[in-house]
């Protein structure tokens, strides 16, 4: 299912890069284009992008005086529902292709979405790793409590795939409604471990990430797109270009995201 989707995404990614190159927001020589970008850019972004997009927003505002970036961070699926029900947004950044498909199928995306980062699952455990967890197999020890995301949300879908790949038959105590919910259960000490994104653990000082090989087969692609209902299409395009620029990628990589398959 993955390879056929990756090619158009890659083509789109190259196309957007090419467009960005023409009047790239990250290109210091494009003074004329910078001047035309004004006003408020409203970005609907997945909850896992909260920290990194916050930083990117501030940098974008500094690079484009006269602009303001406002965010609506929530679960990608909830955002997709809001957008298809007519919420006024300029840009949508999803944590998985599924919610993005909801938006494109409703005709709300201007152009092809482009994958701008990928995120991988890790096992989140308390800093001192008291249960000595080294891999998925350690999570099925009797008495070990594990939180997963519900299969309906991207992180749960990825967790299901990783567990299937590993053959470990894990029964969690809870299936959380989003990745932050699973994270909170480990932070509060109610569970011993949770399968969450690497970026979430990196943003949480009291937790440690235990990498596991099976997560390589369950990597989440994050697509981004300008929306047809955008009230500020120029600003929206400039923001997407900024996210995909070298400066943008540096912030995202620093947060623990991986670069997209091509580009």
């Amino acid at each position, binding site marked *: 299912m993955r390879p056929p989707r990756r090619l158009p995404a890659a083509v789109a990614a190259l196309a957007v890069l090419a467009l960005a190159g023409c009047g790239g927001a990250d290109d210091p020589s494009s003074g004329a284009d910078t001047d035309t970008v004004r006003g408020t850019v409203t970005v609907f972004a997945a909850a896992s992008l909260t920290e990194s997009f916050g930083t990117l927003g501030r940098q974008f505002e500094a690079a484009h005086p006269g602009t303001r970036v406002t965010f609506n961070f929530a679960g990608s699926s909830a955002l997709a529902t809001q957008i298809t029900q007519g919420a006024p947004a300029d840009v949508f950044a999803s944590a998985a292709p599924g919610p993005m498909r909801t938006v494109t199928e409703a005709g709300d995306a201007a152009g092809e979405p482009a994958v701008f980062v990928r995120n991988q699952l890790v096992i989140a455990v308390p800093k001192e790793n008291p249960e000595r967890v080294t891999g998925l197999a350690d999570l099925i020890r009797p008495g070990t409590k594990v939180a997963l995301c519900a299969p*309906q949300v991207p992180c749960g879908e990825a967790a299901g795939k990783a567990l299937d790949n590993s053959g470990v038959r894990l029964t969690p105590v809870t*299936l959380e*409604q989003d990745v932050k919910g699973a994270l909170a259960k480990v932070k509060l000490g109610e569970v011993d471990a949770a399968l969450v994104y690497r970026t979430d653990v990196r943003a949480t000082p009291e937790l440690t990430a235990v990498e596991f090989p099976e997560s390589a087969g369950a990597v989440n692609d994050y697509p981004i797109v300008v929306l047809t209902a955008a009230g500020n299409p120029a600003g929206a395009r400039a923001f997407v270009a900024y996210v995909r620029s070298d400066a943008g990628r540096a912030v995202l990589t620093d947060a623990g995201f991986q670069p997209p398959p091509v580009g």
Partner: protein
Amino acid sequence: MTVAPGTVRRSDAARRRAAAGRLPLALLVPAGLGLLFLVLPLVGLLARAPWTTLPQRLTAPGVLTALRLSVQTATLATLLCLLLGVPLAWLLARVDFPGRRLVRALVTVPLVLPPVVGGVALLLVFGRRGLLGGWLDATFGITLPFSTTGVVVAESFVAMPFLVIAVEGALRGADRRYEEAAATLGAGRWTTFTHVTLPLVAPGVVAGAVLCWARALGEFGATITFAGNYPGRTQTMPLAVYLALETDLQAAVVLSLILLTVSVGILAALRDRWVTGP
């Protein structure tokens, strides 16, 4: 004593008839608008419901399990609230003690607290690392988070203020002369409470219990935070609706309608049997 309430009721009815003569537009128009405001979202749900696929949706795996769990936990939570909430309401209405105002304000805390925060607060008390949770586990082997009992606890926490406020209001509105008469005739405080006060405020208790049950049935935030979400154990209908919304708006609409139908049906049946309207 049996004559007096009858007289009161008759004069009430007479007053009602007199008031019915003139319906002021200044009340009718906002009343109509208010009703419309409350009912329109329901119309929205009905308009979007996928009627043709309804039977398959109803029998989809997990739906009945979640529904049964919802009704069971909400009922247990209401019983728990009655057991603890009616005495608490009596205390607030009938006993003058220092700090009563503060206690009354504290009772409404769960109303103001965002339910998710309420769930976190419950974890901080009854969780594995909570103030009482570790002791409960070590002494009695009771762990509340991620259990059906945990769902009942979360629902009770959020719903109890509705019961306490309703019952306290009924107690304050009740004529205290009957209680005084009972005391004069030699009844102790407990006998007065069970034989005079409670029958007197029964409609208020029932109304409070109904509010409490309805709130418990719709509880989402505290439940998912404190008890988690696991099908058959802690996944109630509101949790199932929320997760269905992640992937399938129509499924979420259907689940909401099922929950609404069942709750309205149960409340209507109860009303016919136990609550006699005017």
